[in-house]
């Protein structure tokens, strides 16, 4: 690492804040000097290279998704200026075309949403209730059960898949069939197994994360409500949940993205039809059977990425917090 100092053209925010607050100005200049030495020219170049390397693959796919099929198949996307061409055709084809050979992503997009929204709400509510119980109700074995739940979030899902599928076939299958008989609109393959699976698998982490937050709520608030005659339900929904909202937002975003991006649970519990299967499952299928149709794959990949990217760029603060807290999940 070279030590060539570069002249900083802007003050870093930490220094700026200290100065603004009228703190010891000398400390400010010192820390800036430390900073100047660390941000050498080599460091800047290396970090630029890493940033570019990390961005190029996604960028290439993004550019390609707007190129006509014959150009994608015959020229590299980096030659776009020599071989110009622009079309929305790939997107309209993968989303709207009804022909049998096209990916028909529209219905899978709906499926992804229809799985991810209840797949987030169900475990979030049940998990928050359990977290509240662990934090504020005294019972024997509370500590032991809580540690077991904590350990479960790391256990690989692979340990649960086979027996759970058998249980679903025995108990949920008849229920689904009955539902289809009563309401023919709802196909025999419906979302129920995927919802239940995601709820089960999401609970340990959600309980653990929300517990940490809910236990910090001041006890006086809850006590005051109880004295005022609020029922347990009112205390939970009117006081605890609103106070825990920042934590709930982070956990909700994490769970939503986890479900949206999941492939394994979908593969096993969705049945793989257009009635239930989410985008990820369809994409995995397309790469297998049509691995060379890049005009479709590029656009299809971006259809599946758009929601996570929106969440990432618009809710970054909550997103990062949730992701960092939940990164060991099964």
């Amino acid at each position, binding site marked *: 690492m070279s030590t060539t100092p570069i002249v900083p053209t802007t003050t870093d925010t930490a220094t700026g804040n200290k100065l603004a607050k009228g703190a010891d100005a000398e400390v400010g200049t010192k820390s800036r000097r430390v900073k100047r030495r660390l941000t050498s020219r080599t460091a800047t170049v290396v970090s630029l290279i890493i940033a570019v390397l990390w961005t190029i693959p996604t960028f290439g796919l993004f550019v390609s998704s707007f190129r006509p099929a014959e150009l994608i*198949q015959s020229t590299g996307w980096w030659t776009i200026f020599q071989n110009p061409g622009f079309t929305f055709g790939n997107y309209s084809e993968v989303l709207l075309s009804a022909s049998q050979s096209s990916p028909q992503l529209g219905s899978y997009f709906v499926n992804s949403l*229809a799985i991810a929204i209840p797949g987030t709400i169900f475990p979030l509510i049940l998990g928050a209730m359990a977290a509240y119980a662990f934090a504020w109700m005294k019972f024997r074995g509370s500590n032991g059960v809580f540690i077991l739940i904590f350990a*479960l979030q790391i256990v690989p899902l692979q340990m649960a898949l086979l027996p759970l599928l058998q249980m679903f076939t025995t108990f949920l299958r008849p229920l689904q069939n009955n539902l289809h008989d009563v309401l023919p609109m709802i196909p025999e393959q419906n979302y129920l197994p995927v919802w*239940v699976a995601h709820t089960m698998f999401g609970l340990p982490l959600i309980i653990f994360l929300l517990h940490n937050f809910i236990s910090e709520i001041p006890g006086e608030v809850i006590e005051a409500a109880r004295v005022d005659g609020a029922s347990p339900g009112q205390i939970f929904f009117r006081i605890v949940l609103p106070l825990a909202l920042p934590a709930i937002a982070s956990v909700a975003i994490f769970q939503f993205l986890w479900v949206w991006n999941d492939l394994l649970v979908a593969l096993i519990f969705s049945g793989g039809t257009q009635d239930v299967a989410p985008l990820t499952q369809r994409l995995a299928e397309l790469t297998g059977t049509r691995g060379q149709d890049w005009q479709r794959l590029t656009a299809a990949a971006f259809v599946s990425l758009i929601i996570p*990217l929106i969440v990432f760029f618009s809710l970054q603060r909550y997103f990062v917090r949730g992701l960092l807290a939940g990164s060991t999940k099964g």
Partner: protein
Amino acid sequence: MTTADLIGKIIQVVGGLAIFAAIVGLLFFFLDKAPKRGKDYWQLVVFLAPALILVFLGLIYPAIRTSLLAFTNNRGDFNGLDNFVWMFTQPAIINTLVNTVIWVLLVPTVSTVVGLAYAVFIDKSRGEKIYKALVFMPMAISMVGAGIIWKFVYDYRQSGTQQIGLLNQVVVWFGGEPVQWLQTSPINTFLLIVVMIWIQTGFAMVVLSAAIKAVPVEQLEAAEIDGTNPWQRFTNVTLPGIRGSLVVVLTTISIATLKVFDIVRTMTAGNFNTSVIANEMYTQAFRAAEPGRGSALALVLFILVLPIVIYNVRVMRKQREIR
């Protein structure tokens, strides 16, 4: 998708949410009506039982069943350690185990080193936020999406024609012959590992960046006054200061890597000697109708994760005692 399909799906979601709300509402309704004497007990049951029952049915009981299934054959009869003997004698499965070891050695170390270097280099630089977002972005997208992004980079066209995959184009620019990357063992395993590193580096970078910012400036200044160079300051002040975060990052990425499935499934489906335990488990249990063998592989995966689980539990128990 026809309109009728769409309506059916909307009914399912709205109906599902309504039924869920009704069940929760009923639970609280009965709680209100519960006799005064046992109220604390019923309150505990209403709040805790739904989650505990689901966790028991969805994770604990199935995990026990899987552990037992690992010692049965495909007809469900007890067969002792046959599945494990099979695992360690079949060349294809040994290859899978070796691949998993390579993954778990390379991904955490490389991701952490690159993430740490990047975090240090961009620390307090102009545009730090944008730099961070660019490298962290892969964490947001699905591994299936990441698999497609990289499959495109590795795409192969016959030598002499224009390449459309960036990696082969770079090879051609340097005068080489294009390679069918994903079909060529053992390089293909390393190319899949690159995808996981691409995803996990952002995680390492964000955690370590926060840790670096928490290292007291005074210590760095004191070291500077003592005439140390930046490298010495980094190894003697910064590194010890972020040790805890480094352990968290390494163990977290190790767990994620042990369980990696989507990348392998999407890019090669485990063919061409690229399979890993999680993928082989799926193949055996759900494709080859060998639940015993699949369960045995799941059990191996569990045993590999177990030390990290125990370590994490110990750390958490300590933290709870302090509180």
